[in-house]
């Protein structure tokens, strides 16, 4: 509960700072923060490197828009369609991966394969998705506000508060999961899933729950993000997007629920603070990934909490017997 107070200053930010650039950076930070926080459930807490997260993000963005455009549903119902669709897809993919006990590299590769397959379909189904050109949105989400009735969500202020509420809800949701008995099951799977199985934990079920719950968060982020920038294209699914998600989670700190938001802030603000082009941005992403793993595997928040000293025991990712498929 005390941690909830940390959010209060963020509520006050728009009242103090009227700079649109700063607020826009924060909006992107919150929206991408949801993406990174949800990714961290499967990656940081359950120890499975899923490369499907960017695809969940993109699929939901497409599903939300297409549901609105074809069925005429309002945005929030469209988002529900997106989340339900992504959850069902994740349920199928997760069942396939975990039923066949795919681990580590094999899990990463198969989730990557599925996200590539979805990207190929989105890219080539021109009549439905407009292919590589993407879709410019003409629809906007609406919101019922007491005293003002139903109003369209537009302008920096409204998006600021909407995304702030969304990220707070996401952090609340995931921290409830992580700090419950379920979270301890995830941790036991991360540390040693054979042992977890021996102890009577249903490894398959909890991996599946973590995978679906993480992707559902990505789906929410995808709906909001795509409507904030009013545009979708197959780049949502790209490997660069997955890379950015991993970078945010690692840089922030993969041991803390809200820490990936710090990573999202750094990576979103960096290109604005030091004015660089796309190539240099890619270079910085790469260097951040490498340096984070090699120098501070516990991320910014981890370093702030415990200092640069290396933990005496338990490396970041436990070593497993090699060639375990």
């Amino acid at each position: 509960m005390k941690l909830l107070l940390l959010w209060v200053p963020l509520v006050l930010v728009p009242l103090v700072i009227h700079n649109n650039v700063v607020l826009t950076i924060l909006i992107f930070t919150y929206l991408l923060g949801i993406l990174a926080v949800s990714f961290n459930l499967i990656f940081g807490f359950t120890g499975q490197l899923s490369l499907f997260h960017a695809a969940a993000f993109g699929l939901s963005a497409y599903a939300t828009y297409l549901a609105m455009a074809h069925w005429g549903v309002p945005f929030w119902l469209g988002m529900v369609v997106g989340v339900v669709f992504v959850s069902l897809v994740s349920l199928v993919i997760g069942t396939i991966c975990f039923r066949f006990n795919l681990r580590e590299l094999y899990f990463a590769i198969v989730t990557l394969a599925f996200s590539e397959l979805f990207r190929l379909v989105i890219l080539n189904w021109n009549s439905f998705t407009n292919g590589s050109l993407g879709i410019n949105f003409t629809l906007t989400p609406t919101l019922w506000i007491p005293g003002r009735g139903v109003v369209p969500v537009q302008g920096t202020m409204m998006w600021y508060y909407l995304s702030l509420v969304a990220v707070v809800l996401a952090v609340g949701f995931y921290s409830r999961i992580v700090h419950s008995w379920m979270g301890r099951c995830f941790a036991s799977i991360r540390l040693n899933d054979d042992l977890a199985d021996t102890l009577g934990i249903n490894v398959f079920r909890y991996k599946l729950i973590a995978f679906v719950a993480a992707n559902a968060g990505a789906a929410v982020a995808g709906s909001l993000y795509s409507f904030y920038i009013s545009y979708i294209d197959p780049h949502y699914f790209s490997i660069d997007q997955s890379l950015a998600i991993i970078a945010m989670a690692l840089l922030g700190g993969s041991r803390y629920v809200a820490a990936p938001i710090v990573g999202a802030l750094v990576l979103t603000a960096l290109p604005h603070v030091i004015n660089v082009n796309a190539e240099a941005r890619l270079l910085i992403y790469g260097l951040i990934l490498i340096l984070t793993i090699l120098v501070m595997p516990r991320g910014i928040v981890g370093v702030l909490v415990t200092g640069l000293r290396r933990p005496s025991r338990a490396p970041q990712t436990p070593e497993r017997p090699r060639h375990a498929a």
Partner: protein
Amino acid sequence: MLQLVVGQLLNGVIVGTLYAIIALGVTLTFGITGIVNFALGAFMMLGAYFTWYFSDGLGIPYPLAVVLATLAIALVGLVADQVLFRFTRNNLINGLIVSIGLISVIVAIVLMVWTTTPQNMHYVLPGVFRVGGVIVPKMKAVVFGVLLLVILFTYAALTRTWAGRAAYAYAQNPEAAALMGVRTKVLQAGVAAYSAALAGLGGGLYASLYSITPEIGAGYILKGVEAAILAGIGSVMGSFAGGIIIGVAEGVGSIFLPSAYNDAYGLVFLVLILLFKPAGLFAVSSR
């Protein structure tokens, strides 16, 4: 129709050997260092650019340019191994993430130096072979021959030489190998450099056939990893077969389905293999 099928079959075999050379590097690195180096795709791309630059930029004859580029990439691979991957040995996820980071660094540098404009090398060896209506460009035949020789050489070196047997021993049991006098640090660095050299050679030969862009590495490493896993990671001839299978599936598949879905075949194969025969297509016993 038959000509078309045979033509695509041959084409698939040739592209498949390019996948195979990457797959070989993936398999060797995994066997010895316990990580999957996705940066091999970026090394291949870099090899293509180096060859193009040495040959068209500096005027060095093509065969020499390929050799120089291969050596240069071996050096890049060695440096990357000593500076980065040395610290992620046997930690698959960290190794994966570091290699992904390295890819962005390499791609970013290539973008800065050579921009996104596709580069085309001069025709090294114009002309075609015609065999009963099927047309095979001479250069493709040469590329296939060179790659096949290198793969056979690698196989022979691994099975017939002391260093090769040391590598096999290390892959089976690192401690026992070390006790038997295998200098494991040297072996690991050597294999990392050799795998990079294979990727660099693949890139150098690729340069003579197709346009070079900074993105080519991503596609090839994906196919390489698919091929390596398809056949069962750790097997030299298996990765060769895996590469050919994916290449042929793409070549023949493009006759029947839109070529936009070319990249999907390998992925579908891979998922099926991992689900039903996780130790690989040619594994004798499972696990």
